[in-house]
């Protein structure tokens, strides 16, 4: 399941679709599981009339969580050593998201081969919604 350092080349990219037509219900599901009940994510009345946004929007951490699935499907279960992101644009109900991991380099630390990846998630308009990095232990 895990990646082998010998099979990878710098610049190699893995891509996955995270979600198509993101539903408000999934955002509610994430609120319930994570415990972040900020009404900006689930309460259309509050978000449009009080906070001044066009609609509710996804938790940044939902986008990071979905992006995490792309990573663990690619690098293997339990292999991540680092994962960090910046949220660069909001994600809205109805969005389609695609994520990619691109190998930047492989380093050896204490006998472990560690792959460093650039991680990017984009929406249907090609706008970057999340940008960051991941590091994973390779075989």
């Amino acid at each position, binding site marked *: *399941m*895990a990646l082998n350092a010998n099979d990878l080349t710098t610049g190699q990219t893995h891509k996955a679709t*995270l*979600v198509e037509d993101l539903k408000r219900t*999934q955002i509610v*599901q*994430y609120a*319930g*599981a*994570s*415990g*972040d*009940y*900020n*009404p*900006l994510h689930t*309460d259309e*009345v*509050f978000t449009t*009339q*009080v*906070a*001044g*946004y*066009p609609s509710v929007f996804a*938790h*940044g*951490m*939902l986008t*990071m*969580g*979905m992006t*995490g*699935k792309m*990573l*663990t*499907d690619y690098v*293997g*279960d*339990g*292999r*991540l*050593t*680092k*994962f*960090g*992101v*910046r*949220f660069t644009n*909001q994600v809205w109900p109805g969005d389609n998201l695609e994520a990619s991991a691109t190998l930047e380099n492989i380093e050896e630390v204490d006998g472990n081969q560690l792959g460093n990846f650039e991680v990017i998630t984009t929406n249907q308009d090609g706008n970057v919604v999340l940008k*960051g990095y991941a590091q994973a232990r390779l075989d």
Partner: protein
Amino acid sequence: MAVKKFPIEASHIMMFARSVGDDNDIYFDDEYAKTTEPGSVIAPPTFMQSSAQFDPDYFLRPAIGKPWFGSGKEATGLKPQTDGEKSSDTKGGLHAEQHFEYHRHPQPGDILTATNLPGKTWEKEGKRSGKLVFSESITEYRDQNGELVVTAKGVGVRTERPVDQ
């Protein structure tokens, strides 16, 4: 966030994995998980965020008997300020960054504690939302043996006005 007791539980992992659209059996099926390299159900990479469930004072969960800023009969449950301005609680903090470092991946049965370390605060002028005030929080998650399991760093931002679309 500081949490005295964050028990890692299989059903919580299942619900969390579902919510992020992750159907990997390692989060749902302990028999299958035994056959994988970790050898057990493990927490998905961003699961530490859900320690909020175990923070008794988490501010983004309605507290029993206290006002809540989400809508009920009115668009917000908070009383309007006399000067007509919105309460600062409704101006909206957003999540700007999140970083995790995994020393190991927690599994059901682990009982973690979360401690906060001081983080930086800084300001920036934003094109789309006015003045931005960033604040960092660093959280160390340790297990029942006091071993460091995950280090998390979050950056929150308060905007002067809603982000222009």
